[in-house]
């Protein structure tokens, strides 16, 4: 029984072809996603720490809520 450490970081990545500008990601994860003038997501380029649980949860909701399944959470490789 140990504490599960959360080290490392993640990116929220969008598949721009699948993305159709629904905008659910911006509603669900506003700290990561903002909108450009055509309603398409502008996702933060810098990685977010995995220990930032609130943001991670928002990101997970965004991935689940995207109507086109265009989002993915990518772990930053540790090395």
């Amino acid at each position, binding site marked *: 029984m140990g504490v599960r450490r959360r080290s490392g970081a993640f990116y929220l990545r969008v598949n721009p*072809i*699948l*993305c*159709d*500008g*629904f*905008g*659910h990601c911006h*509603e*669900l994860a506003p700290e990561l996603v903002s*909108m450009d*003038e*055509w*309603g*398409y997501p502008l996702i933060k380029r810098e990685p977010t720490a995995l220990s930032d649980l609130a943001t991670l949860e928002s990101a997970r*909701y965004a991935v689940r*809520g995207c*109507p*086109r*399944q*265009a989002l993915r959470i990518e772990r930053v490789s540790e090395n």
Partner: protein
Amino acid sequence: MIALTTPYLWYTTRATGMVALVLFTLVVSLGTLVANRVGGTVVGRFEVNELHRSVSIVAVVFLAIHILTTVLDSYAPTGWLSAIVPLTSDYRRIGVAVGAAAFDLILAVWISSLLKVRVKNETWRFIHWFSWLAFSSAVLHAYLTGTDAKSGAGLAVVAACALCVFGAALWRYVARPTRAAGRTALSPIASAKGPAPTTPRPVSPLASSSFPRHEPQTMTSTASGENPHAFPRSAAPRQSKRRR
């Protein structure tokens, strides 16, 4: 097959059938709202989507009870098979067949949505379009088999559901988002408007309009070559294997 002397299974079938129909009306309407990108100000768009997903689960549960009670009930003799395979029921053959068809389609739509992460997006969208057909079959089934749907309040409910979804279908088409060439869509929250369909808008009135795709070519060592490779209009395109 439960041989009951009381018709309670049969009542449950009829009741859950009605409820399922109303719930599916709600599901389809909510789906239309999602597709036409409603929300963003008072109600979040993702909330409409979540509601659509949640209500669909409830609707499927009622549908499951409806089918279960139908199959288990001996009063209206329908076997397990006829719930899935159309035209295998002895009781109200066409009506149950249409219901079985509706169930198959709803099952396909529902399972592909549960596995949405695993299924390719185009596949999921293709199957999801069949939800309209599923609903139409459900309404037809309600009218053809429903003891209650023939008259009175039952008929009113079924008619209202049908009308509601028909209106939703119309609105779905009329208020659809503008697309760039049938592919990506302009978001409803766009502050900028989308591109107009392409019309040549040259800056100067005498901009070259008849530009040969290829001009005469020369190479270092030789004199000016001949043969402008002017491209004619392309030949008839190959039959597309798949339409977008």
